[in-house]
């Protein structure tokens, strides 16, 4: 067994700490230590994006990240998107547009969509498509997912204008 290392970081807005084996991946820590099972393990090699989380404002594959690298950083998982009013606008848009089939890729798609929303106030459909190229949907429901993120971007930017 590897040595343990103590880390402190912000998880979904709350300060947390843990002592983790230094070889542990971020996704194993999130699921097994913090019991946040919304983040899904798909391929385990960064190909599918089901494990996407946001660290210091940018999206990363939590299956490729060492848990110890969360130290001192701000980590957001799918569980952290919920607001006091319930689902956030992008999550609601996924529901409204029916952009969910089996649902396994959905947390990763929503997290990557959130990262895109954070970065840009507007994007073409083609840019959204490029933006989620690291996320696979084995139900192949890409069209609705892309339209949903594009519409959420559009709505966000309209709100900003008005």
């Amino acid at each position, binding site marked *: 067994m*590897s*040595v343990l290392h103590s880390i402190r970081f912000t998880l979904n807005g709350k300060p947390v700490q843990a002592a983790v084996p230094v070889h542990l991946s971020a996704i194993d820590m999130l699921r097994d230590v913090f019991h946040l099972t919304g983040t899904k393990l798909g391929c385990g090699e*960064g190909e599918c994006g089901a494990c996407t989380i946001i660290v210091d404002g940018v999206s990363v594959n939590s*299956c490729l990240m060492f848990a110890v690298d969360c130290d001192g950083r701000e980590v957001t998982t799918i569980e952290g998107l919920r607001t006091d009013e319930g689902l956030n606008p992008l999550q609601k848009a996924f529901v409204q547009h029916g952009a969910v089939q089996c649902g396994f890729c959905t947390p990763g798609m929503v997290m990557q969509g959130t990262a895109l929303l954070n970065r840009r106030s507007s994007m073409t459909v083609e840019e959204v498509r490029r933006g989620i*190229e690291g996320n696979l949907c084995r139900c192949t429901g890409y069209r609705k997912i892309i339209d949903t993120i594009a519409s959420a971007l559009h709505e966000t930017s309209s709100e900003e204008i008005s």
Partner: protein
Amino acid sequence: MHDIKRYLVPVSLEEAVRAAAEGDATLLAGGTDLMPQTRTGARSFSPTLINLKRVPGLRGVSRENGNIRLGALTTVTDVLNDVLLREAAPVLPETADHFASDQVRNSATIGGNICNASPAGDMIIPLLLLDAVVELASWNGEAVETRSMPLEEFFVGPGRTKRQPGEILTAVRFPVPGEGFIARFVKFGTRPALDISVVSIGVAGVKENGTLRRVRMAFGAVAPVPVRGRTTEAAVEGRPLTAETIRQASEATQEDISPISDVRASAWYRRELVRTLTTRILNDVSTS
């Protein structure tokens, strides 16, 4: 299964190379190769894991003494968005744009991509075109010592480099390209994103009056290491970029490569791809 005895997070380069000098250590940068390789058992951890993230000065792009220097911990996203590179060496951001996915680009580092020494490492190809040199730091018992080596000579085989135990790759640098320098990169895979390149090709040179000089060609995933294509370069150097020159150059590529058959493609197919893509990329250069 994993038995890491010691975990170190050095906060200075001196501390890092002194730790590395003590013996068998695994270096952690972005982790995007190390994590899956150790999870599947393709690679095992050394007793000491040294996390380089907190070493200051290893991340970022700078221009000094006619060179552009990329710190080893510069991420692929950093390269993609870097204003200096977009102006002075756009082939690097262009290649970064074809690297894996947004999520991987946000974590993966230039130093990691080089030290992982995959024959298909995408960022290596444009760096070969730019005559890049790697900087390796180590502890000589009294001070931090740095040696430099042309990137082209750095690779020994798949996953193997000339980096010695105790050495840390700190940066890669290249001369600022001069007036008229152009460079192109293309990769071919079955999926636009994330695919490990079946083949990748880069060409660069200084274009004057329809002729390319100081030609650089580089090929990925068609030899045990990413390679410069010197036979192809000679076929292009100083000749008008006519259809005949391009045909001869595309044939000459076959001397420069030694592809294998694997799960992604057969050797025969890789040879065909290199011939075809070289024709295409040189046509693009001739008309640009």
